[in-house]
């Protein structure tokens, strides 16, 4: 059987170079840096308005991406990458075209262009780096913001404390089209991450990668907690890892048992005001999602990441 790519065998050359302006401990930077390593130099990147546009796209005349980079607006990622791909196709150039948008640019303002590109099954990769609010403008609520979270537009005040609605199930929206590939990723599940990006790269047609990227400034968490937050999100059921291929959903990692959501919430300032009732409401929502995702029980497919790291399993025979 062909050996899957892992973090030791993946390409090492950077295309989001150092010197970029992301905050210390930025989850988006971790995600995009590794995505770019795998996609390689024969790639063209489109980034709409977002933190990544400023911190990675750069400020004229400097950019941190060393591959062709383009920007034009906020809501049109799905459309512009379709156009870029068509232009390359006309010239007989086989180039990986990727659009990397935030959750605001994907869940909200960019949903229409994304849905259009998915429906046409454009031969592009669309990546949503999801930090659960409009972070580039200073943490405003998006369709991705979870229930209870503080943002500047869902403030903790006298009437309500934080967001009153639940996070939009974007993957259901996107995968409702017959697209080539869709997957959820976490920067804490590194080999899973690498394999999904590699799979997306190797396929033709519309590919959608949804990456959870903790945000130190918007989540009010310590920069060093970015990894723990990404990992804990999966363990608590706030985030789950799966892929959809040919209409079949496959869970790629299943936690052994559900960790109470409080273990995740307490690591972040954005949830610290939450009442007992609100936490129960959120926990109930998670339980529903958990049951839907993991039951009937699917056996764990791979050993847990940290186990692998501890016993050095995945270092052998590489």
């Amino acid at each position, binding site marked *: 059987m062909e050996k899957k790519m892992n973090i030791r065998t993946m390409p090492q050359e950077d295309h989001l170079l150092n010197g970029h302006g992301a905050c210390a401990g930025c989850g988006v930077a971790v995600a995009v840096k590794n995505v770019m390593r795998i996609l390689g130099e024969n790639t063209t990147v489109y980034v709409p308005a977002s933190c990544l546009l400023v911190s990675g796209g750069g400020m004229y005349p400097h950019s941190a991406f060393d591959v062709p980079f383009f920007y034009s607006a906020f809501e049109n990622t799905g459309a512009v990458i379709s156009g870029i791909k068509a232009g390359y196709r006309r010239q007989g150039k086989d180039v990986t075209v990727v659009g990397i948008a935030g959750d605001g640019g994907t869940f909200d303002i960019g949903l229409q262009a994304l849905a*259009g590109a998915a429906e046409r099954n454009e031969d592009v990769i669309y990546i949503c780096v999801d930090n659960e609010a409009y972070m580039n403008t200073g943490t405003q609520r998006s369709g991705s913001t979870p229930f209870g979270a503080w943002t500047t537009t869902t403030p903790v005040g006298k009437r309500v404390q934080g967001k009153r609605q639940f996070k939009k199930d974007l993957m259901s929206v996107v995968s409702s089209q017959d697209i080539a590939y869709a997957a959820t990723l976490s920067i804490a599940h590194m080999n899973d991450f690498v394999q999904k990006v590699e799979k997306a790269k190797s396929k033709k047609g519309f590919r959608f990668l949804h990456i959870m990227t903790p945000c130190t400034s918007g989540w009010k968490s310590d920069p060093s907690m970015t990894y723990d937050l990404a990992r804990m999100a999966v363990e608590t059921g706030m985030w789950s890892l799966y892929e959809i291929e040919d209409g079949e959903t496959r869970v790629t990692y299943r936690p052994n048992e559900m960790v109470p959501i409080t273990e995740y919430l307490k690591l972040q300032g954005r949830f610290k005001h939450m009442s007992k009732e609100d936490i129960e409401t959120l926990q109930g929502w998670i339980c529903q999602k958990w049951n839907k995702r993991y039951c009937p029980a699917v056996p764990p497919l791979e050993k847990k990441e940290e186990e692998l790291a501890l016993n050095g399993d995945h270092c052998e025979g590489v």
Partner: protein
Amino acid sequence: MRSVKALTGNQAAAYGVKLCRVEVIPNYPITPQTIIIEQIADFINDGELDADFIPADSEHSAMSMAIGAAATGVRTFTATASHGLALMHEMLYVPPQVRLPIMLVNVNRSLGAGSGIWVEYNDSMAERDSGWMQVYVEDNQEVLDMVLQGYRIAEDGRVVLPFMLCLDGFVLSHTVERVELPQQEEVDRFLPKFVPLNRLDPKVPMSMNIAVSPAHSMEMRYQLDRQMDSARSVIKEVDVEFAKAFGRSYGGLIDTYQMEGAEVALITLGTATSTARVAVDELRAEGKKVGLIKLRFMRPFPHEELRKATKHLKALGVFDRSISANRFGPVFTETRNSMYGSDIPITDHIAGIGGRDLTVPVFKEMFDVLEKSASGKKVRECTWHGLRGEM
């Protein structure tokens, strides 16, 4: 051999696109433009045109796709009207500064409430600050010819700006006229292969349209201003070249009719020019010294040409088919601005709003006002012709 066909304005635009061998055509339907993209879909499906036809989810996406494709260095086209153009508004500001010579046909239609699907210029006039060249045409032959000329002008190394061809909804878009189609080889000789200024290409990476700080924006904007200015001479030059190749000339930025010995003249644009010619002929037959100036380009604006053409006049009128609430029509504002310092009385003549039919008597009424103005009588600065109720 050149062929002659009976084509609508929309079909003429589509034939122009085919002859120009456009490569990527994002599209979205809207009345009264839709026939253009339907005709192009047929061309592609029947193997008459080899292009990527991308059905967009909106006009905003259509323009976004055109921008993406043009950024890789291929010839692109899209078409829209009215609300579609308004939805594109945000994206219209990208191609001029990024220097992507995209062609857009806007089939003029009134925009917003208090209107329907008929011709008015408030859609495209609102976009004249965006950095697109804008031409308004009079008949279906000019539609086809300006697609050809438009690409040649837009892609000229001295210009490299996007081109908006504005044609009147229904009055041209759905009206059949005689159109002479040039041969493909003739067009290939006239319109060289597109060579972009910059392009996305992993072999030679470029950072395109990243954020720009105040330290660089101003120089970029002035560059655009100068670029639009240099389009003025290229437009004239291409018209001469076009005449040599195809035997038709449009005069460049403006055209004139019966201006010799004219004492009063009216500036018109779009199909109004056609009907106004009839009015001029009838008034001339009565011995009245009236003339016509056909404003072709709204951007770049022919300020010098207008001053020159109007030097000998006793009164000048400007026809407007849209209005900036409380401050006249845009063509009048721009004309009076260009005529600053001249002592010729200039008046604005609003008509045909919301697609109301423009008849010969309407234009005669305008010339009546001009003759009064020329004889020193006091007239209204701005007259709405065909309006019910006292102004």
